[in-house]
């Protein structure tokens, strides 16, 4: 696995681990590293059946690492439920401010109807049919609303990743 691939894979594992243990868990990096270590070790030992199965294999390892961590933690002290992610705390204040502004701007660019649609879709978990009926949109309209909103947030996310990378150097 090339360095770049490992870095990307590490990001995905980090997301997966954070999803499971919460974003405020102090041991996220250790869990990601341990998963990566076991995965690379298994790959070197030719334990991976096929390239296609790599993601599922890594997911299995990640699950085991988290389970072991939880068992260890429960033995010592009770662990709280998932804690919400703190907002971009690792970024310098100016960059946090810029990102906050970009996010606010992205939200402002959404029309009231689009916000209603997005909230119904993402937060209220209404079915596509319900949303179409409630708003009078066609499926194509809905797809456009989703794609437009997602594109803005994808750009902001990439910018925050670049900021993080730059501030780490």
């Amino acid at each position, binding site marked *: 696995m090339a360095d770049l691939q490992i870095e*990307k894979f590490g990001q995905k594992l980090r997301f997966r681990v954070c999803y499971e243990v919460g974003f405020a868990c102090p041991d996220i990096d250790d869990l990601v590293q341990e998963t990566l270590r076991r995965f690379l070790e298994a790959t070197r030992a030719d334990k991976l059946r096929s390239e*296609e199965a790599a993601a599922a294999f890594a997911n299995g390892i990640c699950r085991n690492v988290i389970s072991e961590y939880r068992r260890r933690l429960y033995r010592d002290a009770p662990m709280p439920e998932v804690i*919400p992610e703190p907002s971009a705390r690792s970024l310098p204040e100016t960059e946090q401010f810029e990102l906050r502004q970009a996010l606010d701007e992205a939200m402002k660019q959404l029309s009231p109807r689009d916000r209603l649609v997005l909230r119904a879709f993402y*937060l209220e978990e209404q079915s596509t049919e319900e949303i179409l009926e409630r708003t009078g949109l066609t499926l194509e309209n809905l797809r456009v609303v989703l794609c437009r909103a*997602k594109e803005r947030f994808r750009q902001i*996310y990439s910018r925050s990743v670049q900021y993080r990378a730059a501030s780490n150097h």
Partner: protein
Amino acid sequence: MEKTFHTDPVAREHTFARYLARTLSTSAAEQLENHYLGCDECFEELRATKLLIRELGGMPVDSAVERTLENVMESALESALAGDVTVIRFTGSAQLTCSSSDLSALVRMVDTRGDTKVLIDLQKVSRIDSTGLGMLMRCYTHAVRNAGVLKLLQPTPQVKRVLSLTKIDSIVPTFEDETAALLSFRDLG
């Protein structure tokens, strides 16, 4: 999953939303994880969705939209008077989590009312996370500051476990039986 994901973005977004809200079944969540760990495109989309959902959850809503949401929110809760105790109940299955509208509805109901004796029935609450716990404590503090009392009724086993782990049940009185809970308010006069 791969085929559906790359041909039907609406279905993909639905799956992402349910995954992030933790309402996806275990097997479907595992399938999604197996997929995004190997697919850069879906991983980027998932991260963007997460950011979008976080912003949607915290954004101020327009008054017209807010009114619609208010109606939806309030219909999820009902309150009734039992003597001088206000009993707040969820009318359907509810979750007290950061992305749930049930939580905002509950906080709004407790905050805006002047009741001094409040009993919250948690019978229909299937999940609670740290945001929900924080908000419950906020309701409790609000009641105490206004010389009131707040108690909890019939938490489901999962919620009970969290209340016990965080030791909140030792601060906020919790009851299994409604009559006993109502009687406990009488001792306060």
